């Protein structure tokens, strides 16, 4: 397969995307959210496949469940935000020419209308998300979602949250972590749990920090998740190679963020620097920070004349149009 096998709006996935977007617009007057679009495409793909029709949806399990691979989706689709949970999805250009009165078009239209009947109702989107997650390859995905959702809801409602309950829910999720499938991430589960334990057992738990650290752990895990053979379909080799090439970077990124949080925790609890798992992380991050400061201080004088240089660059950057 190559990219052009996906980008043409007249292909089944283009027809399906057009129908999902326009059906939503017809019923509500506005384009669908990224969450709705993704869940409908995911369910449409699965349901049609069960009936023997394959629309070849490029999709993978990622941060918000099963998501389409944007880069491989047809040209007609427009997204106005990078994040799935915040974008709306619209259609630009004409209706796919391949949509007509033929049996495949009719089957597709009926399926999209059926999904809208079921899920474009109050509470329907949450049901769609549940339905998609019911098919998640790993129990950990479901359990960690439940943990994060409870934490998020209790913060939103400003409930007197039970730190103990959140910690229990988190431990239950981590007990289901697919260690053999994701050894790189699994190696960091003990330090993650140690830090979360520190937060939830403190006299005044910092729930915002708990939420932030949980999201960062989840986001990092998802870089590995989408690469698992059971977690992507119809993805180009270029796409998975691109994902794979970022793993080392993201591991460093997660490590830095995690270490920053643990340093922050140690500022309120000095005995943490003696912790067998967290102590070395704290010492390492502090040393890195001092080294970087020294490096930057050594380059301060390098920037005399930098503004003039940039002005000249800008002035000379003229292609002549």
């Amino acid at each position, binding site marked *: 397969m190559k990219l052009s096998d996906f980008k043409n709006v007249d292909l089944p996935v283009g027809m399906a995307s057009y129908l999902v977007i326009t059906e939503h617009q017809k019923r509500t007057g506005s384009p669908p959210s990224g969450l709705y679009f993704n869940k409908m495409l995911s369910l449409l793909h699965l349901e049609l496949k069960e009936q023997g029709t394959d629309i070849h949806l490029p999709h993978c399990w990622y941060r918000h469940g099963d998501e389409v691979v944007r880069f491989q989706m047809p040209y007609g689709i427009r997204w106005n935000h990078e994040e799935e949970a915040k974008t709306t999805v619209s259609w630009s250009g004409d209706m796919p020419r391949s949509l007509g009165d033929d049996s495949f078009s009719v089957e597709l239209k009926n399926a999209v209308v059926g999904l809208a009947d079921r899920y474009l109702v109050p509470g329907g989107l949450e049901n769609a998300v549940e339905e998609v997650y019911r098919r998640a390859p790993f129990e950990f995905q479901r359990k960690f979602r439940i943990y*994060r959702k409870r934490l998020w809801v209790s913060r939103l409602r400003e409930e007197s949250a039970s730190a103990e309950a959140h910690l229990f829910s988190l431990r239950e999720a981590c007990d289901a972590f697919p260690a053999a499938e994701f050894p790189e991430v699994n190696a960091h589960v003990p330090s993650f749990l140690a830090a979360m334990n520190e937060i939830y057992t403190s006299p005044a738990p910092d729930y915002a920090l708990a939420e932030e650290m949980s999201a960062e752990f989840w986001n990092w895990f998802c870089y590995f998740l989408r690469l698992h053979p059971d977690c992507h379909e119809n993805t180009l080799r270029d796409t998975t190679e691109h994902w794979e090439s970022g793993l080392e970077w993201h591991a460093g990124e997660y490590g830095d*963020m995690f270490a920053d949080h643990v340093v922050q925790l140690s500022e309120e609890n000095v005995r943490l620097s003696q912790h067998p798992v967290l102590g070395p992380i704290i010492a390492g991050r502090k040393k890195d920070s001092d080294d970087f400061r020294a490096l930057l201080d050594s380059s301060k004088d390098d920037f005399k004349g930098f503004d003039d*240089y940039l002005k000249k660059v800008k002035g000379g950057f*003229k*292609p002549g*149009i």
Partner: protein
Amino acid sequence: MPDPLVLDSSVFKFTDFIQWLRRHHGRKILPVVAYTEISVWYVSIKGKDQSYVDDIISRARIELEWYTPHIAWRAVEFASALGDFSDHARDYMIAAHAYTAPRMIVTENKKDFAFLGDRVCSPDELMYPGRTMDGDGDSAGENDSPI
């Protein structure tokens, strides 16, 4: 996660900001055009090694983002809508990396990127929010479910 930041070359002289970036937990993106400008300054003018530049960038966890056809098309959209490509070529090419919300350009020269609306800010506005920021810098409601 904080919104992704797209860095203009002009911010690199602020070493406190680069140190701040290291502890900033959102994506920090350096367009390859800006990377070229910074590298030319360090390597060709200041006589440093390329590895010196790359060391600063990687230790601050700044991602280098390539100039792809997708990004070029966005620069073309800016040029078509705003015109005057001769004077603004590099601005459009850098701004194209921040085409999609919530990406935000960080620059010392905010007026050069005014066409991005409120998705432009200075290093000071990020480091000291509330002191000089025009908008609140938050492109989405905090109550949106992250899950």
